[in-house]
């Protein structure tokens, strides 16, 4: 299997009373009330350092993502980060996983086709092209996309980008949402007809169905841990079977918060404040900013309203031990972490594990220690999985050569 480091690039030093001051981590926090541009400059650099450190430590890929107007993660243009990572890891067996630029909020979307093609060229064909639909708050509030148009724009934009990457002749695009008279993209990606395409989602929706139909990789971006994800993964594999797809685990990527230390007790102690910061401060996103009328298509809306009314968990009421006990975060000694991860990976059939090795207020030193221990003591036990039976068709071809796990384990 492949294991990539994911990073959100959060604000790491929010005021202690942030959650009293603001009902939402998205849209509402005022820059001049909470933030400091010098600190943010340091965070961007630390984020890049941490991802490059993970690449050097032997992780298979480094992931960026796009969000807007929030404290939870604000790589407003992930291609800027991806460009630095592509340059810094040149010659290495590491994928640049852009998870990625949000098509519906970028007009024209050929801008993203160009940026991704640049990244593929700069990285020597190591790009994984991720295309999220974007959070409702990102797309519709920060970028003014009409809610009911978001998914339709996404589908049209993805078709346009794929055509723009591979068309041998100049073409005109007369779409519903985009019109371009002369499309002749410069540059084109090295990987033809297109780099591997990954599409993130937080559950099974029309997007996931579309991913299976198009034979792309579905990235389940959950913050609630592998232990709580079986309902979604089971439905995903059913969907794949219904549509005649095989059970290749590389069709499925999953995000997991992970904290490793020498012992369980040490890990629980070390990561407690950062887990609480992540769930209590950063993740607080009220429903009126994410359940905007139109963002769910009608059948999905009815389904959501019909859902058995689970008592909604208020994350602000939970503490670190709750996050650990419920499996939202996997923390512990290398042995504990690898056992829990292996359970989850096998149960859900995860081909690409997206390890959130930085979360919340975690300082760089701790993040690097986490990466070290993970790469040395956990990764070698995971990466052999699946490869005896399945090819990763959603990975840059130039990087598919097997890597000797033992050599990597001592490299850092």
């Amino acid at each position, binding site marked *: 299997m492949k294991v990539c480091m994911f990073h959100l690039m959060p604000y790491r030093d929010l005021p202690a009373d942030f959650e009293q001051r603001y009902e939402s981590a998205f849209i509402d926090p005022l820059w001049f009330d909470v933030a400091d541009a010098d600190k943010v400059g340091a965070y961007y650099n630390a984020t890049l350092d941490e991802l490059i450190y993970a690449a050097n430590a032997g992780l298979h890929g480094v992931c960026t993502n796009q969000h807007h107007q929030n404290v939870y993660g604000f790589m407003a243009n992930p291609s800027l980060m991806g460009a630095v990572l592509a340059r810094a890891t040149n010659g290495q067996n590491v994928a640049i996983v852009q998870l990625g630029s949000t098509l519906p909020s970028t007009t024209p979307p050929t801008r993203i086709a160009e940026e991704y093609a640049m990244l593929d060229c700069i990285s020597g064909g190591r790009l994984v092209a991720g295309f999220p639909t974007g959070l409702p708050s990102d797309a*519709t509030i920060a970028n003014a996309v*009409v809610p*009911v148009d978001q998914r339709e724009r996404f589908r049209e934009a993805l078709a346009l980008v794929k055509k723009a990457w591979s068309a041998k002749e100049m073409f005109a695009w007369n779409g519903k949402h985009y019109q371009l008279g002369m499309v002749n993209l410069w540059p084109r990606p090295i990987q033809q007809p297109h780099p591997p395409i990954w599409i993130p989602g937080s559950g099974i929706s029309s997007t996931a169905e579309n991913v299976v139909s198009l034979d792309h990789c579905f990235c389940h971006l959950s913050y609630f841990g592998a232990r709580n994800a079986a309902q979604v993964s089971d439905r995903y594999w059913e969907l794949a079977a219904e549509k005649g797809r095989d059970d290749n685990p590389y069709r499925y990527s999953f995000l997991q918060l992970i904290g490793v230390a020498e012992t369980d007790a040490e890990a629980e102690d070390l990561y407690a404040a950062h887990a609480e910061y992540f769930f209590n401060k950063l993740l607080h996103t009220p429903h009126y900013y994410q359940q905007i*009328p*139109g963002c769910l298509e009608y059948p999905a809306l009815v389904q959501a309203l019909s859902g058995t009314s689970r008592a909604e968990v208020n994350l602000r009421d939970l503490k670190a031990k709750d996050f650990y006990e419920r499996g939202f975060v996997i923390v512990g000694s290398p042995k504990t972490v690898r056992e829990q991860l292996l359970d989850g990976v096998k149960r859900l059939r995860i081909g690409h594990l997206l390890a959130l090795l930085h979360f919340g207020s975690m300082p760089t030193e701790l993040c690097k220690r986490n990466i070290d221990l993970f790469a040395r003591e956990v990764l070698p036990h995971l990466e052999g999985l699946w490869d005896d039976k399945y090819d990763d068709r959603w990975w840059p071809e130039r990087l598919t050569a097997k890597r000797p796990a033992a050599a990597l384990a001592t490299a850092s």
Partner: protein
Amino acid sequence: MGGPEVRKIRLWQDRIETAVEVSGSGPPLVYLHGPWGIAPDRTFIARLAGANTVYAPHHPGTSRGDHEAVHVLESWLDLVVYYGELLDRLALEAPTLVGHSFGGLVAAEIAAAMPRSVGRLVLIDPVGLWRDDLPVKNWMLLNDTERRPSLFADPQGEAARLFFGVPNDPAARVDALAQSIWAQACTGKFVWPIPDRGLKHRAHRIVAPALIVWGKADRIVDAAYAQEFAARIAGAEIVLIDGAGHLPHLERQDAVIEAVRRATTASSRPQREPK
């Protein structure tokens, strides 16, 4: 008393099915509902039907069973031309056009685009203009605590209770919520994120005698906007409603019905020539 007759009319090259609720008798009146769909407005429509034959179409995408129609009309121009087609199909002689909120904007736009096809115009707390010093509040992003006081002068009053009430039966509850949310999606499509589609450039074309009704305590679109509309529609009359917010036709139904009736039965003012 029976409910309204529901006519299903296929329009737009047969791609949109529009349910039109027809009730009452008297001179024709077309009622265009606001962002929450037709359901909350039915008591008001029934009152209008006391003196008029009321035609109340469901906005495209909100007719039951035709949800995907939301994707058929692609632009503001499409929407206005679609309403022209609907009015042609109803074959009404210069009807009175009454619209609330989003429906008020649509009514004003129709009256500007097709000045001779509208006999009288009644706008109830319409959206459609914009002042930077009085931004219109986005009704699709209201949080739980601000929703009631944003829409009603008396957040605990009977009108608010009825508006926000949901059935106890689980299936009926899902249906009611889905209809209300989807109606916001279908109407919001045309005015997201700012409900200004340029009516200010076209309002001078309106020649129908116009009544502008506004809830004095409207916290979605401030009542100062009544003047903004009146300044752009020659001869427009303003009636401000005490004790009402953004939905005065629900919160002070008697007062709004009285104002509409006075305006629609007043000795006919000569319609001006379109400019």
